[in-house]
């Protein structure tokens, strides 16, 4: 029973981590390798606002979300826009930005242990004989809510539909008067925002450390590859596959092995079904 419950929680965690990455890639074909860095940045800013500036929690959270979204948008409009379309440069530049943020934070004194965010709600509850923190339940609820919101946004609002149009056919979208660069900025901001939301929901469970940035990037990438890059359904399904696989290995083989699961999942996916669970249409473009 606890395997099922913690499996669901772990899967929701992974889905939250991967959502922003797959959103940006799906819309603008831009692999945002600074994803993990933005995640850590959001937690750090929130901590600073809470403990150094002394703002109330809601205000601090909202400000840090806005800040990270702005950083994401600025990253595209000042730096990445210049190298749009050169995939090697895009990877290297966004990875470099992420590294600069993460290692800059590490130098600035971000070390393990001292930086923690409080739980939203204290306490725990028994579900079918397994005791679960409220915070972990909140992860599942908010994760579902976020997926729902993003789904609604992409399929029902003008901006969302414009983003979807860009993802499907950039040229056709251009002829209909959708500004490709503005949409890319919007998608980067949105992707960064969802990284920040994930950070604020997930970070209270642990502490804010630089390593989390790399961990989140790896997990996001693993989920996206297994699910098929840029595919929403695939990403969520893959989050559940990897999430449960991790919990099962932790339960039967030991916690050390759960980090290896992500890599094994990627390699197995690449061998058995190279374009991921739901990534059919771009098959020829991405591999030979």
């Amino acid at each position, binding site marked *: 029973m606890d395997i099922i419950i913690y499996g669901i929680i772990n899967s929701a965690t992974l889905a939250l981590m991967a959502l922003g990455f797959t959103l940006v890639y799906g819309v603008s074909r831009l692999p945002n390798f600074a994803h993990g860095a933005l995640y850590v940045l959001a937690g750090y800013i929130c901590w600073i606002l809470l403990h150094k500036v002394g703002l109330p929690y809601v205000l601090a959270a909202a400000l840090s979300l806005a800040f990270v979204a702005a950083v994401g948008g600025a990253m595209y409009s000042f730096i990445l826009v210049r190298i749009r379309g050169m995939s090697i440069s895009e990877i290297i530049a966004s990875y470099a930005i992420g590294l600069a943020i993460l290692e800059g934070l590490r130098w600035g004194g971000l070390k393990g242990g001292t930086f923690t965010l409080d739980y939203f709600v204290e306490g725990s509850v028994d579900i079918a004989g397994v005791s679960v923190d409220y915070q972990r339940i909140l992860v599942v609820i908010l994760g579902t809510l976020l997926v729902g919101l993003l789904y609604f946004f992409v399929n029902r609002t003008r901006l969302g539909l414009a983003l979807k149009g860009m993802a499907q056919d950039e040229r056709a979208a251009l002829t209909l008067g959708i500004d490709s660069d503005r949409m890319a900025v919007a998608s980067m901001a949105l992707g960064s925002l969802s990284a920040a939301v994930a950070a604020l929901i997930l970070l209270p469970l642990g502490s804010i450390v630089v390593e989390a940035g790399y961990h989140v990037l790896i997990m996001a990438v693993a989920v996206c590859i297994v699910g098929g890059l840029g595919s929403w359904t695939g990403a969520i399904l893959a989050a559940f596959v990897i999430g449960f696989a991790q919990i099962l290995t932790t339960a039967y083989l030991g916690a050390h092995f759960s980090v290896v699961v992500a*890599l094994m999942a990627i390699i197995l996916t690449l061998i058995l079904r190279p374009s991921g669970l739901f990534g059919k249409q771009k098959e020829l473009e991405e591999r030979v």
Partner: protein
Amino acid sequence: MAKQHEGRRRERLDRGIKVRSDGVYAVSSWREMMFLVGPRLLLIVGLLAMPLILGGVPYWQKVLTIICIYALLAIGFDFLAHYVGLVSLGGALYIGVGAYVSALLNTEFGVPIWASIPMATVLGGGICTLLLWPCLPLRGVYFAIVSLMFPLLAARFIEALDIFGGTDGIMGLDGFPNKWSEMYVLIICLLLALFGLRRLVNEDMGLVFRGVKDNDQAVKASGINITYYKAVGVFLASSLGCLGGAALAHIYMWAGISQFALDFSIIPIAATVVGGGGTLAGPVIGCLILVPVSELLRDFGTLRIAVYALILMAFIVFKSEGLMSYGARKYNQFEHWVEI
């Protein structure tokens, strides 16, 4: 611009194409021969003389060996990225595998140092190629993503399974007999790798490599096995990295998980971008500039990785051709002022 140089302008003339080509015209006069040989000689003699120039300062001699190791890795990265079309963000994997293989050979099987480094080069290259084999059908972004994960996970793997000495690493390797051999072995390997690869990319095989990079469907249609050629490319590049890793392990007489560290992945990329991608000599120049800078920044801890990342970003966005291509262009042009 125009106002500053009233009445005259700068005229640029390309050096004759016959001289720049490798034909018989290149040896038509001493001047033309010097023109072609000069820069190459400068690099060779400069690198060979470097240990003597730095003779009095052991610290900077150590830095020189580190430069060579990074340069080997960077040449491999450049070759793989610009001639085979595989961007490998995980150079640390090669260093780590090379270091562990030579450490195991040396301590467990008692292989002497002059045999363990070459063996680690070949074996390590083979191991890296096998590890990356499933990812070879992937292109561009996808390969980069997966290769990035390998060194991070390799370190975790060793930690988790507690194999190869776990977090302590493997200690007690044989060192080089003296510091001169340490430096010259690496410098000569570096020069051989550099000129060897430059030769290779102009051979038939290099043509296939570039074909794989530019249009793999066409290569496939010609009945050539792409995955095989990609594997050969990865083998060559990772062997260079493993050679560096093996040498590193023997220099420190220790192999551990810190040899999967991020520095080994990011510095070669930065050096390639700064020096000029696709030139093979550029990455060496990039390393000669960046690694000393990194040593000067050592007091600031991880800030140096941040500094690197910023330099890398600035170059890739604002000066993406790199120093070497810029220099080569200037070198091949005559420039002088003419009155209007």
